[in-house]
């Protein structure tokens, strides 16, 4: 019996953290625990959630993608430019932007895989390229007047549920399907677990690594479009610092920075924990700046907890039946 409980705690303990957090804020302020606020929270988690699915793939292979935040800005600016200034059909605009960003992703992937340069540096460099690009498109000016048809992606509802939430569920499902069900889903875990052993087992390491960064760019683009629809404005600074939120969501949710492990539900739980925290702190009217400090501390705590748990695992005596 004791074994079962500690097994559950070990693997799903983070859900407990989420529940405690929700209960805490609910007790402290009654306006937190309403249905409409809960919907707001999950909707706020959606954009980070969608982008985090892409980051999950990267982290599983033992890499990191710092470009996602500014990629989201670039996506917003470019799509806005296509739709407003060029009057392009929204669907066409989105498709082109997906292609462009995934090509950028593939470039990052090729540099990481073939030249063996650390993903940290490569993606950081591209991050700056995308940042400059975001400003360059309109010389730093915001883009207004986006077509309403497009904005449903961020504003619309299906029944009582906001579209962004549905899209996040869809993104999570895609991630789950590839990672859990397909044969190439295992490739990501293998490369993150032991790249040399993966290579010697016939796994196409280079191709998989390139695909990893393309996938990250795909989901970053996806998130960027939803964000654009949500705020109805093309603003160059939209995604600034988003990579931090995304990585935090993954790590808090339980994805290991060392690679080789991580599941989509970690991403979901992590995104929710951050969204609940943001929302709760706003309701408590705590300063924006304090929020930033808290988020940093929480990331630190999450990583420490993860580490301590791993050390405990090897010492723990589980009483077998």
């Amino acid at each position, binding site marked *: 019996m004791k074994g079962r409980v500690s097994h559950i705690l070990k693997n799903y303990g983070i859900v407990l953290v989420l529940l405690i957090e929700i209960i805490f804020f609910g007790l402290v302020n009654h306006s937190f625990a309403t249905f409409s606020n809960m919907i707001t929270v999950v909707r706020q988690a959606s954009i980070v959630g969608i982008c985090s699915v892409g980051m999950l793939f990267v982290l599983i292979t033992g890499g990191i993608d710092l470009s996602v935040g500014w990629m989201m800005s670039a996506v917003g600016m470019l799509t806005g430019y296509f739709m407003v200034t060029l009057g392009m059909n929204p669907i066409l605009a989105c498709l082109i932007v997906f292609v462009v960003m995934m090509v950028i992703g593939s470039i990052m992937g090729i540099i990481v895989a073939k030249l063996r340069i650390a993903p940290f540096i490569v993606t950081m460099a591209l991050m700056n390229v995308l940042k400059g690009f975001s400003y360059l498109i309109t010389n730093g000016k915001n883009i207004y007047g986006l077509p309403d048809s497009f904005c449903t992606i961020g504003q619309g509802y299906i029944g009582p549920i906001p579209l962004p939430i549905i899209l996040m569920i869809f993104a999570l499902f895609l991630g789950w399907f590839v990672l859990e*069900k*397909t*044969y*190439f889903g*295992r*490739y990501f*875990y*293998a490369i993150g*677990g*032991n790249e*040399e*052993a*993966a*290579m*010697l*087992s*016939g*796994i*196409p390491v280079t191709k998989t690594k390139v695909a990893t960064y393309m996938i990250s760019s795909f989901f970053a683009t996806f998130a960027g479009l939803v964000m654009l629809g949500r705020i109805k404005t093309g603003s160059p600074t939209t995604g600034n610092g988003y990579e931090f939120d995304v990585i935090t969501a993954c790590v808090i949710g339980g994805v290991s920075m060392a690679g*080789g*492990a991580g599941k989509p539900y970690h991403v979901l739980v992590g995104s929710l924990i951050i969204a609940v925290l943001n929302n709760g702190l706003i309701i408590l009217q705590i300063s924006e700046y304090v929020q930033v400090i808290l988020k940093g501390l929480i990331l630190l705590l999450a990583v420490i907890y993860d580490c301590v748990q791993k050390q405990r695992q090897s010492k*723990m*005596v*589980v009483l*077998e039946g």
Partner: protein
Amino acid sequence: MKPILEIKNLTKIFPGVIALDDVSMEFYPGEVHALVGENGAGKSTLIKTLTGINRPDKGEIIYDGAKITDFSPIASKKLQIGVIYQELSLVNHLSVAENIFLGSAPRKGILLDRKEMMEQAKRIFEEMDLTISPNVTVKDLSIGFQQMIELAKALAQNNRIIIMDEPTAPLSNSEVEVLFGLIEKLRKKGITIIYISHRLEEIFRISDRVTVLRDGKHIVTKETKDTGRDELICFMVGRSLKNIYPKRKPAEGKQTILETSHLSGNGIKDISLKLQKGEILGLGGLVGAGRTEFAQLLFGVKKKESGQIIYRGETVNIRNPQQAMQRGIMLVPEDRKRQGLILEHTIHENISLAILKMISHFFIINRKKEASIVHGYINSLKIKSYGIKQKVKDLSGGNQQKIVVTKGLATDPEIIIFDEPTRGIDVGAKQEIYMLMNDLIEQGKTIIMITSEMEELLGMSDRIAVLCEGHLSAILEKEQFSAQTVLRYASEIDAEA
């Protein structure tokens, strides 16, 4: 003479297993005390307890008359107990001298005294008869030389007890002689050596006494001269093992399945040889002769510079392991932890690693098929574990090796290259692997076996190809098999027959 180290009723329990069960022993100054036993017998646990990594659940450790109460690697360092592990503990990016003095470098106040460090390192190398510059970076050395550096480290730290865990596994025969010379010197200084090895020939050569552990229990301690190989094996496995190298029918007919023609690249120089279907071709040579490098060319890990590989009569270009596997060539790599396994993953994930695409239907993995394949191999190879969801890192060396082999066999290859198939595994598991190799031959497969263990090379091969410095020195037929012949060709190119 009083013992320098005494162990009384030492017990250590891990989840589900009693690793040490009421073990009592004594070690004397200036003795070479061998410790033998199958994997899982408790040798590693004993070392870890002596060096403070594990805290015993019961029992006492008495060092130089005083009971040990503080268990940590730093405390054991103060006691001057040094260990040389199977998995080397060197820092790859640092120089050899820096590694030897890691944590105990000579200083001038707070500054590192590099000059003194280099001088001391040079002196140690002279004493060891090694020609290595103290400035060389560890990662540029072969595993054999890295092992020597570990020894130099132990010497530098003036340990009174040195524990050596499988020290000769990566060493060439000449390096082993150097090691044994060193051990003699250490013994004369009154240093105690606890020598753990599966290589019984070595134990009979250099040890004074030998202790057998089995299933965590102390079975027997004897003067080495009072016992023999068969008796030791009997104690180790609890049964007698006749015919370690199982006999098999020689291959009928000669059909060349694989041929290399003037193959060069990756350190290999102009190797031409023919591999006959149904044979075990042993690949012998000193460490650094190029055996693994040759295998890497055949398996597509490295690119050839010139020459050809001809498979079933067809010249092929193998550019990566995938292509090699498609042709039916599989490699079981040398270093199972770094190259063969994903330690954090489970047994079933490791076994199915090379056949993921094959067990899938339209991208989706057929889990039932996967489970049945995995269970099939676990049964037929007798892999011991708590279940297929167990992490591979928790298994014994022998079982880990079986998993690497299984992963390769699952691809149903025609040619299997085994690189050091029984390194660091116990006698019982070794036998199982030999029998497996025989089964594979009987099924019509062909094996290239790279091994540094002379007995294994002579016992299992149908023919032996001896490499020396990247060249093919000789191909020996069964009638020519002898340790001297192999060694001669391994040391000189084109020696007279």
